[in-house]
C-alpha cells in the first residue's frame, strides 16, 4: 500500500512542478535553518564539556559585599588553601593573565600570556602537538599552533627561545618553548596562546605573591572527588571570607560560590570580571531558534495552503477511493505520506544548503565555529528524523484531514469546490502575514539600529582621533613630543583612562551612602581634545601636572540623575577612601565603553602626569590614515624593540557596528525568504478563492463591475484578517526586535515608527502585487469560458 502511495505521490508531484519547487525550496531553507540552530545549540552547550573531569571541576567565584555582584576572580591563595584543608577536594589550579611584550630576534609583539599552576594540564585537556608540557619548569613556555606559526613559520619551535617582558629591561626573561598545543577550540572558556608557570607573572619587577590573600587571579578551580559534594565544599569555603577581608580592606568578599565547569560559559554574562571567554550569548541561541521556527512555521503554512489549493484536483480521487473501501484514516495517511515525501526532499535540500550557510555563519560570527556532519553524529540524525516528522505533521495534517474529509456524494455531484476563505485558511494566511511582517520589522529595526549607531552622538568627537598606549611615562612623553612635529597633527593629549578603552570601577561615599561609578582619570588637555562638553559648572579650577586636579572632580549627567537624584550636585562632596572631592562641574554623558555596555555614572578626575598611559592624537578625518602611518613610523624609529600599540578611535564602535550589520543582514535575508513564502502562499489562497468565485466574478464583470470592485469582491474575506495580521505582526516584530536588542546591546536605537511603517508598507506592497497578478489574470480571462466553466 505504501509503495502505491509513494508511486502516486511521485507522479502527482511531477505533475505539479511549481508546487513542488516552491515547497521544497521553502521547507528546505527552513530545515537548513533548523539544522543550523540545532548545531548552534549543541555548540553553545558544548563549552568545556570535553575535559575528562569536567563534571568534577568547579570555578570559585566571589560575591562582593559592597554591590552583592558575582565576580569571576578569586583570592590567589584561596584554592590552594582550600585543597589542603577541605576534605573531598582532589586538586586546585589557577589561571592568571596579562599583556606581555614578546620578542623574537628583531620582531616584537604585544601578546596576552596566561600563567598557570603546574598541574593545570592535569585538570584540563588541551592536547600537545609537539614537545612536552613541563609547566613545572619556570623557564619553559608552551605556545599555541597559531603562535608557533606566527613566530617560527614552518620550523619546529620546540627548544627555541622567546623573550618575555622584552620592553622592561630589568624583567626581561628568555624562555624556551617546551611544547606546542593545539589551538584552543572556540567552545572553550579558557582561551590562551601562551602558557607558563604562575611565578613568571610579575607585578612591577617582582613575581606576584600567589600565596597572598590580597591578589586576585583571573580564575581559580577546584577538582572535587565527587560532584555531589559541591554544596558542602561551597559551605566550607565560607571560612576563608575572614582572612580575605582582613587582608584586603578595599575588596570585601561577601560569599564564595562554586560554578560547575560545564555551566560556566552559559552563565558567564552574569559574572563581573569574568576574564574567561563568555560563550555564546543566550540571546543568539534563542534568537536563532526563533528565526528557524518562524521560518519553518511559514514554510509549513505555505505548504498547507498550496496543498489545499491544488487539492481541488484530488477531490475526485478521494471520492473514488472512499467508494472503493478506503477509510478517511487511510486517505489521510496517503496524503500525509505525500507530504512526507515533500518534506524528505526538502530535508535533503536543507542538509546540502546548510553547509554553505554554516560557512557563511562562521565567517559572520568570528567566535562561533559550527560544523555540520551527519554520519558520525547520531543525535543530529535523530533530530533530523524528528524535525522531518514534525514538519510533515505540521504542514500536512490539516490538508490531509481537510481534503480527505469530504462526502463522496457531494464530490460526485460535480459542483463541489472548496475555497480559501474558510476560517482556518484565513487564520493560516493571517499567521503567515503576521510572521512575515514581524520578520520584516525586525530586519528594518536592526538596519536602522546599525545606521543610528553609525551616526550616534557618542558624547565626544570620535572623528579624527587616534591613540597609542604605553605603560612607560618617559616613552609616552617622547612619543608625544615627536608626533606633535607632524603638521597634520592638530592636538595631542595624555591621559590615564580613555573613552572606549579603559576606566576604573570604584566605590565612594555620597551623602553617607556607599555608591559605585566609573572613575576616569584624564589629562588636562584630554576633554577639550575629545570634544567632551561641560553642561554645568566651571570645570577644574586649577590643574597641576604633578598632582592633577587635586580635590576637584567632574561628574556626568547620568551621575546627576542616578546618584544625585536630579538635585544640584555642583559643590557637593564625594569621599573616596579618606579623600574628599568637590564636584566642580557636570559633563555631557559620553559612551564610556561600547554599545554592548550600559551607560553609567562617571566621575572624571584630572590625574597626575605620573599615571598617564595614553597619548591621544587629533587630526582631520581625511588625514587619519596618514597620521596613523606616521605614528607607527615614529614609534618604530623611537622604540624599535617595542610593539606599536596605536589605534583608531573608530575601533570602539567597530565591533558593535559589525554585529548590528551582521544581524541586520541575517534578519533581512530571513525576512525576504519569509516574505517570498508568504507571497506564494497568498497567491495560492487567492487563486483558490478566485477559482471558487470564478463564475460569480465573471457574472459581475458582465454586469459592469469595475476592476476595483472585482478586487474587493475577491479579497473582502481577507481584509479583516490582514488588518489583524498587521497589528499582530507589528507588535510581534517590535517585541522580537526589542528583546533581541536588549539582550545584545545596552545602548541601542530601539524600534522606531519608521521601521514599523516601512515594514507594513513592504508587506502590503508585496501582497498588493500578488493580488494584482491574480486580478490581472481574472480580468483577462475569457468571459465565455468563465461562464461555461460551471
Amino acid at each position, binding site marked *: *500500500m505504501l509503495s*502505491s502511495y509513494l*508511486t*502516486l505521490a511521485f*507522479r*502527482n508531484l511531477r*505533475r505539479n512542478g511549481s508546487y513542488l519547487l516552491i515547497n521544497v525550496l521553502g521547507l528546505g531553507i527552513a530545515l537548513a535553518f533548523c539544522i543550523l540552530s540545532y548545531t548552534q545549540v549543541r555548540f553553545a552547550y558544548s563549552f568545556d564539556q570535553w575535559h575528562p573531569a569536567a563534571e568534577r571541576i568547579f570555578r570559585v567565584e566571589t560575591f562582593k559585599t559592597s554591590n552583592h555582584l558575582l565576580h569571576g576572580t578569586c583570592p590567589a591563595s584561596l584554592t590552594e588553601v582550600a585543597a589542603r584543608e577541605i576534605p573531598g577536594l582532589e586538586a586546585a589550579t589557577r589561571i592568571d593573565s596579562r599583556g606581555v611584550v614578546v620578542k623574537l630576534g628583531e620582531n616584537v609583539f604585544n601578546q596576552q600570556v596566561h600563567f598557570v599552576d603546574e598541574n593545570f594540564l592535569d585538570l584540563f585537556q588541551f592536547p600537545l602537538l609537539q614537545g612536552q608540557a613541563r609547566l613545572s619548569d619556570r623557564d619553559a613556555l608552551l605556545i599555541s599552533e597559531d603562535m608557533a606559526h606566527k613566530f617560527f613559520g614552518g620550523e619546529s619551535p620546540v627548544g627555541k627561545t622567546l623573550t618575555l617582558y622584552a620592553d622592561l629591561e630589568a624583567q626581561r626573561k628568555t624562555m624556551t618553548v617546551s611544547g606546542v598545543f593545539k589551538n584552543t577550540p572556540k567552545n572553550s572558556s579558557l582561551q590562551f596562546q601562551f602558557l607558563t608557570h604562575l611565578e613568571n607573572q610579575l607585578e612591577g619587577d617582582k613575581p606576584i605573591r600567589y600565596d597572598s590573600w590580597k591578589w586576585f587571579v583571573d580564575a581559580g578551580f577546584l577538582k572535587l572527588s565527587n560532584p555531589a559534594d559541591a554544596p558542602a565544599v561551597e559551605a566550607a569555603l565560607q571560612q576563608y571570607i575572614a582572612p580575605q577581608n582582613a587582608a584586603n580592606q578595599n575588596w570585601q568578599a561577601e560569599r564564595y560560590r562554586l560554578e560547575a565547569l560545564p555551566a560556566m560559559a552559559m552563565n558567564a554574562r552574569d559574572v563581573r570580571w569574568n576574564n574567561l571567554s563568555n560563550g555564546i550569548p543566550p540571546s543568539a541561541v534563542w534568537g536563532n531558534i526563533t528565526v528557524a521556527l518562524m521560518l519553518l512555521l511559514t514554510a509549513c503554512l505555505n505548504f498547507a495552503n498550496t496543498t489545499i489549493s491544488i487539492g481541488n484536483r484530488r477531490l*475526485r*480521487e478521494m*471520492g*473514488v*477511493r*472512499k*467508494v*472503493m*473501501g*478506503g*477509510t*478517511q484514516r*487511510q486517505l489521510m495517511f496517503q496524503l500525509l505520506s505525500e507530504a512526507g515525501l515533500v518534506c524528505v526532499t526538502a530535508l535533503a535540500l536543507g542538509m546540502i544548503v546548510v553547509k554553505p550557510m554554516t560557512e557563511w555563519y562562521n565567517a559572520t560570527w568570528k567566535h562561533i565555529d559550527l560544523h555540520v556532519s551527519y554520519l558520525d553524529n547520531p543525535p543530529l540524525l535523530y533530530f533530523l528524523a524528528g524535525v522531518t516528522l514534525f514538519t510533515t505533521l505540521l504542514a500536512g495534517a490539516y490538508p490531509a484531514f481537510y481534503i480527505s474529509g469530504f*462526502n*463522496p*456524494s457531494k464530490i*460526485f*455531484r*460535480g459542483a463541489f469546490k472548496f475555497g480559501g476563505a474558510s476560517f482556518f485558511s484565513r487564520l493560516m494566511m493571517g499567521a503567515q502575514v503576521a510572521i512575515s511582517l514581524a520578520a520584516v520589522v525586525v530586519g528594518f529595526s536592526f538596519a536602522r539600529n546599525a545606521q543610528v549607531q553609525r551616526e550616534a552622538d557618542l558624547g565626544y568627537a570620535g572623528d579624527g582621533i587616534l591613540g597609542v598606549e604605553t605603560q612607560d611615562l618617559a616613552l609616552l612623553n617622547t612619543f608625544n613630543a615627536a608626533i606633535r612635529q607632524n603638521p597634520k597633527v592638530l592636538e595631542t593629549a595624555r591621559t590615564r583612562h580613555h573613552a572606549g578603552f579603559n576606566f576604573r570601577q570604584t566605590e565612594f561615599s555620597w551623602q553617607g551612602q556607599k555608591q559605585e561609578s566609573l572613575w576616569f582619570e584624564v589629562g588636562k588637555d584630554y576633554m577639550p581634545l575629545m570634544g567632551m562638553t561641560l553642561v554645568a559648572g566651571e570645570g577644574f579650577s586649577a590643574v597641576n601636572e604633578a598632582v592633577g586636579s587635586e580635590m576637584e572632580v567632574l561628574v556626568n549627567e547620568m551621575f546627576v540623575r542616578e546618584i544625585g537624584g536630579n538635585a544640584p550636585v555642583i559643590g557637593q562632596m564625594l569621599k573616596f577612601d579618606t579623600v574628599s572631592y568637590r564636584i566642580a562641574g557636570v559633563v555631557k554623558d559620553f559612551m564610556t565603553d561600547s554599545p554592548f555596555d550600559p551607560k553609567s555614572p562617571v566621575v572624571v578626575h584630572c590625574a597626575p602626569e605620573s599615571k598617564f598611559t595614553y597619548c591621544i592624537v587629533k587630526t582631520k578625518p581625511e588625514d587619519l590614515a596618514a597620521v596613523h602611518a606616521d605614528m607607527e613610523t615614529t614609534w618604530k624609529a623611537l622604540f624599535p624593540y617595542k610593539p606599536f600599540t596605536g589605534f583608531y578611535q573608530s575601533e570602539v564602535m567597530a565591533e558593535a557596528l559589525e554585529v548590528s550589520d551582521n544581524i541586520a543582514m541575517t534578519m533581512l535575508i530571513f525576512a525576504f525568504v519569509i516574505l517570498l513564502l508568504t507571497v506564494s502562499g497568498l497567491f495560492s489562497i487567492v487563486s483558490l478563492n478566485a477559482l471558487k468565485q470564478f463564475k460569480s466574478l465573471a457574472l459581475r464583470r458582465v454586469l459592469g463591475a469595475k476592476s476595483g470592485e472585482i478586487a474587493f469582491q475577491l479579497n473582502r474575506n481577507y481584509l479583516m484578517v490582514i488588518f489583524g495580521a498587521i497589528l499582530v505582526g507589528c507588535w510581534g516584530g517590535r517585541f522580537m526586535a526589542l528583546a533581541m536588542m536588549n539582550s545584545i546591546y545596552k545602548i541601542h536605537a530601539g524600534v522606531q515608527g519608521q521601521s514599523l511603517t516601512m515594514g507594513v508598507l513592504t508587506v502590503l506592497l508585496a501582497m498588493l502585487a500578488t493580488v494584482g497578478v491574480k486580478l490581472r489574470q481574472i480580468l483577462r480571462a475569457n468571459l465565455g469560458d468563465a461562464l461555461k466553466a460551471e
Partner: protein
Amino acid sequence: MIELKNIERYYPTGSLKTYVLRYVNAHIAEGEFVSIMGPSGSGKSTLLHILGMLDEPTDGEFWFLGEGVHKFNERRRTEMYREYIGFVFQAYHLIDDLTVYENLETPLLYKKVPSTERKSRIADLLDRFNMVAKKDLFPSQLSGGQQQLVGVARALIGRPKLILADEPTGNLQSPQAKEIMEVFKTLNREDGVTIVQVTHSEDNAKYGNRILHLKDGRVENEELVKH
C-alpha cells in the same frame, strides 16, 4: 437484498424543506438488474447515492442484506464498499495518476488481498475485457469506452454482490455504450451480480429485468422488462 421503506430526502432551504425523494418504497432481490429512469431532477442519482450509502436518507428505512443501513457507522459502511458494492460512474472517475493495472489494484489493496491473488485477479479481468495490452497505460491514453471498461473492471475486481452504475454510458458513443451494457448483462446473467443502474436511455434500461420510473422524487411506476 435491498429494502427501501418510505425513504425521504430533503434539503433545508431557509425554513422550508425541498424534497428530492418522497415516500420511496422498493425491494430489489439478489440477482436482479434494475434500471432507474426519470427526468432530470426526479431524484434518480440521489436514490442511487442512497443505495450506495454515499448519502443518507433524512427519513425512512434502508435495509441491505438484512441489516439496517441507517444503523451503520463509517467503518461498517467502508466494509460494505470493500465486500459488497462496486460503483460505475458516468464520468468513469479513474484515478488519473494510476495506470490501468494500478487502478484495478487499488480496491484490492484496501481489501488487503495478498499480492499473488491481486495479480491473478487483475490478469483475469484484463483478459476478460481484452485490456491486457493497455494495462500500463494511464486513463488519459484511453478512449472513453476503454476508460469505462476499466471502470467496470474496477467495480468488479472486488467481486461485489451489487453494482451501482450512475449513467454508465452517458458519455459514450452508441457502439461503446452497447459494449458496456452487454458486459453488464453478462455479469448479471452469468455471474449473478445484482445491478442497479440509473439511465436516461430506454434502450439501455431494457437490458435490465425491471425499471423504476421516478417523477418528482416518487416512484411513479414499476415496469417489468420481458426478454
